[in-house]
């Protein structure tokens, strides 16, 4: 995958990041989806949050990024028919969705490798990873979701 030429990849904007979410994107770059977990009570969060269940240690000291199962269901979705940016013209229609992860939190992503008309609220999905290219040629990885059980081992 690493030798893929940027010009064969789909164009997207690279993730907007900040110091709170950076560990999440570092994990995505290593093809791992992660959620934040409270070391004290085990509650899961996304994005970075102080635990709501009890007092917290300073600066989220009781919170840690841990691997997510990658399984979830479609919570809400839409199908983009308009390419709001010319760079996405070849990609419409695409499904943008909120995925309810098995651990509980919602996360935004795309549902791919299926006809958009097959996507339903409640559809079981699982994570996969794809590389995209930014306008400046930088290659980056995004988490994507496919209908559960349809993923080929080659992905």
């Amino acid at each position, binding site marked *: 995958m690493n030798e893929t030429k940027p010009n064969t990849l789909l164009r*997207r*904007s*690279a*993730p*907007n990041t*900040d110091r709170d*979410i950076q560990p999440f994107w570092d994990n995505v770059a290593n093809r791992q989806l992660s959620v934040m977990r409270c070391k004290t009570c085990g509650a899961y969060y*996304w*994005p970075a949050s102080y635990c*709501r269940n009890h007092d917290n240690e300073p600066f989220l000291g009781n919170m840690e990024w841990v691997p997510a199962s990658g399984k979830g269901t479609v*919570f*809400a*979705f*839409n*199908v*983009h*028919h*308009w*390419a*709001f*940016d*010319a*760079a*996405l013209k070849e*990609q419409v*229609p*695409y499904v*943008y969705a*909120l995925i*309810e992860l098995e651990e509980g*939190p*919602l*996360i*935004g*992503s*795309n549902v791919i490798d299926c006809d*958009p008309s097959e996507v339903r*609220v*409640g559809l079981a999905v699982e994570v996969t990873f794809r590389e*995209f290219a930014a306008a400046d040629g930088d290659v*980056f990885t*995004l988490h994507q979701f496919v209908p559960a059980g349809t993923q080929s081992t080659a992905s």
Partner: protein
Amino acid sequence: MTKFADQYAIVGLGSVIGPHPEVSGRAMQAEAARLAIEDAGLVPSDIDGALDLKRQGGGGDRPGYTDSFARMLGLPVNFYYSIGRGGSIAGLGIATALGFLQAGLAKYVVCSNFVEDWSNSRKTRAEGKIGMAHTPRRGHYGTPFGDLRAVSHHSFFASRHMHEYGTTSEQLGAIAVAQRQWACMNPDARMYGRPITIEDHQASEMVVDPYHLLDLCQVSDGAVSFVLTTADRAEDTRSPVYLKGIGFGEAMASLWWEKRNYTELAVKPAKEAAFAHAGIELADIGHAQLYDCFTGEVLFQLEDYGWAEKGAGGEFVASGATAPGGSIPVNTSGGLLSAYHFGDLTGTLEAVTQLRKEAGDRQVDANYSLVSGHGGEILSPGMCSIHSTLIFGTKE
């Protein structure tokens, strides 16, 4: 304790609607303020406070550094700054102004905004971009997944409501049709003279399924301004409209955490506070100017305020309840969907115009009007929005 209602009033209103390419947005904003001050029967030297109502955050514009409408207009104010969150600018501006008036730090506060979204979107269209490409979204998690415009995440509201309650696109279309009927009685509305049917709504381009083009609001140029003062000062003005109640709610308080923020807006605390101030019931509201960036938001609010049962909003709007002649006229200017998008200033402008009985063909006589506002962060796992409620009325 003094009753909240009738202590404060909007005494002057000014607006500049449509593109004015010969001047800057700031000058449009200053001109709207000049008109509002004149409408109040005041002169600029009476104004001692100014607020710039600006959509910071939530897909909004960033603060400017160059100049202000208040300096340009030569207002001898003791304070000037920007306030706003997404499309909730009038509500937050009024709450802020109340603090200065209450503390005796101001006698007359002028609030003004401007947008040049239509002109700006014409410029970015040449670069292959559609719609509001000019408002930066730094830090937004959804961008890499193609969440590029407000409709990208607002359509989740419709998706989720359809799933939970069986709401249909045709029912959302009824909202668009009703507001277009109102717009066709408002010569200032962008869509004046262009009536639509449900069939037109269904045949309009699918932008982001489930939203058709006619589920989306206008992108506008213009400026709206008002002067807020205390009741004793309002009495002598030509047509004061009193602030009867004000309230706010935030999705981040509970809805966001409970994953209910895509079927419900944070109306409850805002409504409770505003109606407690006003000392009235929902049935006393004669017309509602509900924040309508998309059709779905109108449906949610009709349910969340209690005009319709939760989940029954689709049937309610399909019955024509919000259209001319209906039980609760909604967005009587045409709203953001069919008239012009100045955030909740669109509703404020209309509520004051209606209560002054200056709404021409679309006049609906009423003692009370409700105006709502909406806006916030787009986390990608769900919007986290404020909801603001303003109740305006004539004096008892």
